[in-house]
C-alpha cells in the first residue's frame, strides 16, 4: 500500500473494504495492485464473509401475471430492497436452494440442467449432467423431490444434492430413494440408494438448512428432521422438540440460527424459536417466544424464511415482514403491488452475501 502520508494502516483499510457491497468491492480492484490482490486473499475473503454474515436477507422470486418473466428481490433490514439479476446465466431459471451466498438454480426450459452461481460476483458453474438421469425417473414429474446445496466457506467447496423416489416406467414408486451428490472438487456426481418413506410439503422442500456438514429437511408430518451427512452419505432422523410434536394445530419451519439448526413453531398466538445449540446431544433449547398479537389477522399466512439473533424475516402472500426481537417491533420490508399468481413465500429463500467463488 502506498502510505504517502502515513494515513491509514493496512489493517484499517482491510476493515473498510470488508464492509463494501460486492459491486463496489469489485470496482475497488482497479484502485491499485494491492487492492486487486486483496479481494482474493484468503484472510480477506474470510473476513468479508464473516462481516456479511451478520446481514441476513430474504430473497423472493416475484413473477408477473404472465409467469414468463420473474425477478429476484432482495429484502434486507439495513440496505432495504434491491433487485438481483441472474441474467448472467443466459437461461430462464428457478432458484431451488440457497446456502452461504451461493444459489442452486434449475433451468426451466431444460429439465435436468442445474447451475450453481454467486449472484453477487456473477460467477457461475454449469453442473455436468448426471449420467444416471436417463435411467432414473424421479417421482413425481421426473423432478427431484429434494434439491439441496451445502456450501462450506472455510474449505471453499460445495455439494449439490438431488434426491427423490425412484419410479420404474409404468409403476408406482416403491420406496427406493435415490440420492445423487455433486462434489465441486471432483466436478462429479456420486449416487447412492436407500429405502425410506418420507413426505415433504412444498415449504419443507424449500427450507433446506446446511449446518455441521449435513443438509436438513423437515418432513411433512412435522415429527422429525431428515438429515443427510455429506461426509459419509448417510441419512438419519433428528427429533423435534416434544412441544412441537405434541401441540396440535401448530406449524413448524426449519431455519438456521447462527450456525445452529432452528425450528420456528407457529401457533395462533405465539411464535416460538427453538435452537439446537449442541448438535451432538440433539437437545433443543427455547430461544424466544414472540407474541403474534399485533399481526393476528395474518398468522395463518405467515412463513418464517430467515433469521439472525436480532431479526426474524417472514413472508406472506404479498409482503415480507421483519420482526426485531429486542424491541419486539414488526415492520414491513417489501410488498408486491400488482397481483402475483404465486404467494411470495412460495419461492422465498434465506440469503446472505459472500464472495465465495463457485469456480
Amino acid at each position, binding site marked *: 500500500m*502506498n502510505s504517502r502520508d502515513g494515513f491509514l494502516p493496512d489493517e484499517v483499510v482491510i476493515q473498510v473494504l470488508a464492509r463494501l457491497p460486492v459491486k463496489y468491492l469489485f470496482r*475497488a480492484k*482497479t484502485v*491499485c495492485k494491492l487492492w486487486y490482490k486483496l479481494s482474493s486473499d484468503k484472510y480477506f475473503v474470510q473476513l468479508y464473509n464473516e462481516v456479511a454474515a451478520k446481514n441476513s436477507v430474504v430473497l423472493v422470486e416475484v413473477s408477473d401475471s404472465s409467469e414468463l418473466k420473474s425477478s429476484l428481490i432482495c429484502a434486507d433490514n439495513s440496505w432495504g430492497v434491491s433487485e438481483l439479476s441472474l441474467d448472467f446465466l443466459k437461461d430462464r431459471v428457478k432458484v431451488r436452494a440457497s446456502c452461504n451466498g451461493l444459489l442452486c438454480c434449475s433451468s426451466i426450459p431444460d429439465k435436468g440442467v442445474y447451475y450453481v452461481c454467486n449472484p453477487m460476483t456473477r460467477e457461475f458453474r454449469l453442473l455436468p449432467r448426471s449420467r444416471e438421469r436417463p435411467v432414473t425417473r424421479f417421482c413425481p414429474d421426473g423432478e427431484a423431490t429434494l434439491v439441496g446445496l451445502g456450501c462450506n466457506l472455510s474449505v471453499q467447496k460445495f455439494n449439490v444434492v438431488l434426491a427423490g423416489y425412484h419410479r420404474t416406467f409404468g409403476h408406482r414408486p416403491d420406496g427406493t430413494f435415490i440420492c445423487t451428490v455433486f462434489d465441486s472438487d471432483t466436478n462429479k456426481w456420486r449416487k447412492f440408494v436407500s429405502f425410506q418413506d418420507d413426505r415433504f410439503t412444498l415449504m419443507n422442500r424449500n427450507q433446506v438448512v446446511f449446518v455441521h456438514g449435513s443438509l436438513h429437511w423437515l418432513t411433512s408430518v412435522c415429527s422429525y428432521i431428515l438429515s443427510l451427512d455429506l461426509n459419509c452419505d448417510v441419512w438419519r432422523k433428528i427429533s423435534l422438540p416434544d412441544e412441537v410434536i405434541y401441540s396440535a394445530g401448530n406449524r413448524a419451519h426449519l431455519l438456521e440460527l447462527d450456525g445452529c439448526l432452528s425450528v420456528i413453531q407457529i401457533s395462533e398466538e405465539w411464535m416460538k424459536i427453538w435452537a439446537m445449540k449442541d448438535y451432538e446431544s440433539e437437545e433443543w433449547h427455547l430461544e424466544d417466544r414472540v407474541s403474534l398479537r*399485533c399481526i393476528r*389477522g395474518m398468522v395463518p399466512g405467515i412463513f418464517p424464511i430467515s433469521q439472525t439473533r436480532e431479526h426474524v424475516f417472514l413472508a406472506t402472500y404479498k409482503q415480507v415482514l421483519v420482526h426485531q426481537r429486542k424491541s419486539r417491533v*414488526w415492520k414491513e420490508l417489501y410488498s408486491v403491488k400488482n397481483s402475483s399468481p404465486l404467494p411470495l413465500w412460495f419461492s422465498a429463500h434465506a440469503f446472505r452475501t459472500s464472495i465465495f467463488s463457485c469456480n
Partner: protein
Amino acid sequence: MSSSTDSPTLTTETTQLSPQPDTETAKPTKKITLKSSDNQIFEVEESVAMEFATVKSFFEDSPSTDTVPLPNVTAKPLSQVIEFCKEQIKFKANPDEAQKKKYNAEFVTEKSDKDLVDMIPVANYLEIKDLLDVLNQAVADRIENKSVEYVRSFFGIDNDFTAEEEAALRREHAWAYEGVDED
C-alpha cells in the same frame, strides 16, 4: 378480495422498559488524565477511560499512575473519541438500541471525511471495538458507489496500473462500474 385478510394493518408493539429509579450515585467518580501527543490534557471519568482497552490494560499493569500518555494520538480525534464513549456509557446504563443507532448515525454524519479517517487509527490504537465498527462502516458508506479516481484520492493512493491494465480490468467486471455517483 376482502381487504381484511389481504392487507392487514401492521401495528407495532414495544415492550416498555420498567421505569428506572433515579439512582445517580452521589459518590465522586474517579478522574483519569490522558495526555495526547501534542501535549493536551484530557480529564475523563474512569468509566469512560475503561472503554479504551489500551488504557485499561495500562492501568492493570501500573495501577499507581494517574496520567496516561498517548504518544500516537493527537488532541482533535481524541476529543471526538471521548465524546463518543461518554454517550456509549449512557446507553450501557440504559439500553435503547434505537436511540443508540440514531446517535451513532448522527455522530458520523456530521463529521468531515478527514475527521472520520483521523479517528480510525485512534480507535484502532485504543481498541474501542464499537467505535471502530461504526467508523469503518461510515467510511465504507462514503466511498460506496464512487468512482475509482475518487476512492484513490480519498485514501491518497497512487494508481500503479498502466492504462492498458486498467482498461482490461474495467472490461473484466464491466457491471461493477455501472451507475457511479458523482464525486
